[in-house]
């Protein structure tokens, strides 16, 4: 077992996660440090084909037709040194009627000059279900550039749910760009939760095309920016089929000299499609603040609790 692997697991444990999942034979996992696959375990129905490139690593993941992966698949991506480049080309295919849930941790705890790039092509076959939760943990310096891009094709009756969380450590700079296409009865739910401080820069671009009849799309963003941090959220939802429905929901809390922008685009091209949106940007809600202060919390404590709530993991029902 490599030292890098052990150190990655140490970081994982440090996050309060149970690292024993990486030694259980019935739990699939994949650990990539830099551009090297340093640990993997597969289970029946799940195929992973890593290929190390000169400037990155390509990972093909296939969930076979009809396979329901019982245990959550754990992925751990990271760069432990202060400097480095990680480039991951991810090709994910869920064959018809397959289902899998993935928990990914992306850790850059010591970063001063680290770049993490992820280009993902994701295809979900008919009635497949893919849930992907990605938690980023960065260091206190913010020396990370994170560029995750994904194109997602959700087949008929399939569901794609993804949640991106970056609330521990400094963001550094992040440029998320996800775009998805939904066939009939398909569901796409994308959630981003991030907290920026110092001179962090957050850019989120999420687009969903509800092309199929009765398809559903939800784009939800929760961002808090403090100090001189900057956030720009662009959510676009197009609905062009009968019965397609969607919701765009962006909330951003701004403190200090931070700046936040939100651009919700709703594009409806069929009289039986229905899309709603809401966006709220501003300081902490004064009634919430006063309520907590009337219970004896200081203003700083109250603001912190309100932001923690805003950035907390979203329950499925809340995002609907």
């Amino acid at each position: 077992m490599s030292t890098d692997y052990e150190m990655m697991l140490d970081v994982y444990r440090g996050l309060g996660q149970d690292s024993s999942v990486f030694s259980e034979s019935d739990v699939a996992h994949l650990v990539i440090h830099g551009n090297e696959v340093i640990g993997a375990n597969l289970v029946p129905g799940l195929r992973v084909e890593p290929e190390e490139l000169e400037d990155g690593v390509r990972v093909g993941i296939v969930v076979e037709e009809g396979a329901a992966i019982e245990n959550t698949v754990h992925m751990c991506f990271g760069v432990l040194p202060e400097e480095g480049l990680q480039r991951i080309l991810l090709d994910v295919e869920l064959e018809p009627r397959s289902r899998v849930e993935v928990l990914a941790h992306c850790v850059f705890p010591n970063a001063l000059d680290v770049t993490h790039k992820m280009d993902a092509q994701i295809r979900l076959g008919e009635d497949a279900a893919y849930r992907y939760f990605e938690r980023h943990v960065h260091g206190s310096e913010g020396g990370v550039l994170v560029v995750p891009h994904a194109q997602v094709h959700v087949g008929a009756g399939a569901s794609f749910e993804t949640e991106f969380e970056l609330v521990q450590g400094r963001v550094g700079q992040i440029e998320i760009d996800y775009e998805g296409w939904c066939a009939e009865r398909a569901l796409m739910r994308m959630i981003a939760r991030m907290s920026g401080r110092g001179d962090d820069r957050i850019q989120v671009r999420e687009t969903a095309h509800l092309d199929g009849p009765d398809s559903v799309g939800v784009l939800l963003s929760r961002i808090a920016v403090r100090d001189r941090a900057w956030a720009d959220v662009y959510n676009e939802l197009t609905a062009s089929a009968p019965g397609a429905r969607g919701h765009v929901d962006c909330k951003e809390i701004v403190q200090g000299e931070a700046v936040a922008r939100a651009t919700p685009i709703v594009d409806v091209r069929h009289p039986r499609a229905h899309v709603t949106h809401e966006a709220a940007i501003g300081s902490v809600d004064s009634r919430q603040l006063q309520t907590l202060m009337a219970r004896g919390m200081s203003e700083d404590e109250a603001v912190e609790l309100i932001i923690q709530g805003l950035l907390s993991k979203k329950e499925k029902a809340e995002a609907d």
Partner: protein
Amino acid sequence: MALLEVRDLRLAVGGKRILHGVSLSVEQRAVHALVGPNGAGKSTLAYAIMGLPGYAPDGGDILLDGKSLNGLAVDQRARLGVSLAWQEPARFEGLKVRDFLLAGAAHKDEDALRDALRRMALDPGLYLDRMVDTSLSGGERKRIELASILVMKPKLVIADEPDSGIDVEALRHMFELFDRLRSEDVTVLLVTHSADVMAHADTATLVCCGRTVEEGPAEQIRSYFVDQCLPCPFHDPSMRPDES
């Protein structure tokens, strides 16, 4: 000695004078009704006692246990034992009932939280992990608000229009709560324009157009209020006294 004393309080909001010199006195362990028609200045007075931003008086004084609260921030007043239950309680995305109750709890133990919820007729097993957000009805939210005050163990609870938006059953629990608070040395200031709510108070102050009209036993003030103020003779603004 009175727990709360308001002396000749004058206050303007956004350049408009709301309180023209209100006075009231609330004894310890009393349930005291602050009553008056809509627009009388009741909520403004409640906010001024709590010290909310924008409600700083420009004359008079507010005393708790004989000490002036003027100039103290909301949290400072809360730590002295004053708390406010809003007419329309705030909702908090992502905040669990447990964490909301813990925010002001005098004792940070789960048993105290459970007890407070039970006293508001809410099953702790069902509510502690629910979010204080739009998934709760207005009545549930109001009861959770009061539960959060119970765990604070304050000296003075200001309940602004406690009967608004809740059903009869919840209202019954609320009145039981006020009785129990009284037995636990907590003083309650009920802000209301309801003669029914007043019936549960010991003493009362009637305010009208930003002035104190009458103060005394609740039943006496209630009779006056029902006879003289319903309907409000100053409903027509042209009938109101000079507000300068």
